[in-house]
């Protein structure tokens, strides 16, 4: 089963390698990982998407907590949360297909951020499934390049997760 985990870590030398090494060393899988500093410059927040049964997830959570640099681990799977991913998509758009590509971009509330006579670069934000959908619709025109950020998540409601 897919799990999305937030890990709050001390923003110190080697911390990303510690977390990534833990996953590879213990045979856990990482589907995506995104990381950036929080409001406090000495703290970073990672969002990790992983897969595993309950026993594996229990181990992942415990092993992450065991790292000295880890401040907090939250598994969002059983909670209400907002999930967003950013994708930049460079799609072929020549004479007859240009209007059709724009229509799809509009439907998904994405936007064009770079234009050439032969292509559009589309910025799209949404749940990962939405991005998958737009990619399916755009692929017949010819996708030259895709960059995805991996999802980030935040819990619903007024309560915040802080260090």
């Amino acid at each position, binding site marked *: 089963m897919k799990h999305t985990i937030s890990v709050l*870590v*001390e923003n110190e*030398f*080697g911390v990303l*390698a*510690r977390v990534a*090494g833990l996953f590879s*060393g213990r045979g856990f899988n990482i589907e995506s990982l995104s990381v950036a500093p929080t409001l406090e410059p000495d703290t970073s927040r990672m969002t990790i998407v992983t897969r595993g049964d309950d*026993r594996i997830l*229990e*181990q992942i959570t*415990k*092993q992450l*907590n*065991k*790292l*000295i*640099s*880890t*401040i907090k681990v939250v598994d969002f799977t059983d909670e209400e949360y907002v999930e967003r991913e950013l994708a930049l998509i460079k799609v072929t758009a020549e004479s007859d297909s240009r209007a059709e590509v724009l229509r799809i971009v509009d439907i998904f509330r994405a936007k064009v951020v770079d234009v050439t006579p032969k292509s559009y670069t589309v910025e799209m934000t949404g749940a990962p499934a939405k991005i998958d959908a737009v990619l399916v619709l755009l692929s017949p025109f010819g996708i030259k390049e895709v960059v995805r950020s991996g999802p980030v998540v935040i819990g619903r409601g007024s309560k915040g997760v802080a*260090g």
Partner: protein
Amino acid sequence: MKLTGSQILLESLRLEGVETVFGYPGGAVINIYDDLYDSPINHILTRHEQAAVHAADGYARTTGEVGVVIATSGPGATNTVTGIATAYMDSIPLVIITGQVPTALIGNDAFQEADICGITRPCTKHNFLVQDLSDLPRMIKEAFYIARTGRPGPVLIDLPKDIQVASMKFSYPETVKMRGYKPTAQGDVRQIGKAAQMMLKAKRPVLYVGGGASLANADPELLRLAELLQIPVTTTLMAMAAFPGDHPLALGMLGMHGTYFANMSVTECDLLVAIGARFDDRVTGRIDAFAKKAKIIQFDIDPSSIHKIVRVDQPVVGDLKWVLTSLLAQLEEQSQDVARQIENTIDWRKEIAGWKAKHPMGYQASDSVIKPQYVIEKLSELSAEDAIVTTEVGQHQMWTAQFFRFRQPRTFLTSGGLGTMGYGLPAALGAQVAFPGRQVIDISGDGSFQMNSQELATLVQYRLPVKIAILNNNYLGMVRQWQQLFFDKRYSQTVMELPIDFVKLAEAYGATGLSTDRVDEVEAVIQKAFAIDGPVLMEFKVCREENVIPMVPAGKGIHEMVLAS
């Protein structure tokens, strides 16, 4: 007054109470060694950095204090890795200080540069690269705190050369503030209460004790618990000295080479109480056949040990000394229930006594050839009550666990988790440095001994009277045993073709060498060695194809033991 980085390091070590360090100099630590020249800290020069780490590990296992190592950058640092991994697997507190090339050269493939923080990340509890001198005192303070608290382990500090020579005003922090590291010390009293109730109701309880018990200095509480409820005790390799080997409740070791009665007790019990043990595969055998009739209680300091291998019915996370003290207090309040429980478990202890009588621990004695088990029995018999025993890895290690009767905690040092050949001699060296007046014995095989035999030089240089007993069968015996049993006796690369003259080897280093192949001389050789006030190597030319029995074949349940060779 300003101090240099290397002076700050040594002053911080002194403030942490460090009296002895083990190490080996080199270009990237030459400043530290220059300051060490005037320092009150005692330095033991081993002949290899791996041995320095094992020696610090032996020092830590016997004293309970943090062992300290200094090594240079590059090859010096990479030579420490096996020692660090050994300590990590067995949860031994160490602080390893490695020199590093100057910060401006890091990443340039400089001379004797290795990314030791990257290399040791998976085999240390934590590590630090010092990038700014102002961080150094805090990092040392944190390193010692991390190493010795919670589940102990090795911590490495990588110290670049330019930071060793830079200077600043020194003050050592008094407290540690780490947002991400707050080990649980006290257990949940309610959970301990539930565990107590389970222990008061079980018909067939067994205590399964691991290395964590001695690490927490909870051996006296363990003894009281076993005696209070009259629960039989089986110990892992790591815990052979945690419970007196000659105690009526002692079942000896369990697992792959465990006793028949320990493995049967675990298989037939209805309550298994794990105390500082982590359900290693050498202990459990086939996991779905392990203690399958039992409810399981697990006491452990490390939350990630709980439910890792087996599902536990009642976990308690906390320092074992605290937890067992609390458990005993709860049980002692219920003296009637305790008395009734002792009555209720009489049949269980009788059943175990039956297993003991049916298949006691033993071997086929011989008058013509020295049996390795016989040598160990004699060492056990003739050694002092508080003798410290180390082993290497292989058959001799298992025979030591099976036939040496340990009487006091922290007297058995062996590489249980990683299984590191070459551990025993340097570990004995470290133990002897910690306890100059006690008997220290390294029980070894001819294969393992040659992995760190250079440390004979260190023993002689520092007049460390370690006694080495090599059970020489001219084989890599444990692998040979597997080849005999599972590979049609195809002894691929396990025959040590070149016979070594171990007596001459000892003498070349200035130690005493003794050798015998006669059964009737074994006792005399041991007595003679023990009487010599200096390092002695005893070689016993033993029965070559003796096997370690009982044995649970790989993939079998621990009740499916092979009992005869």
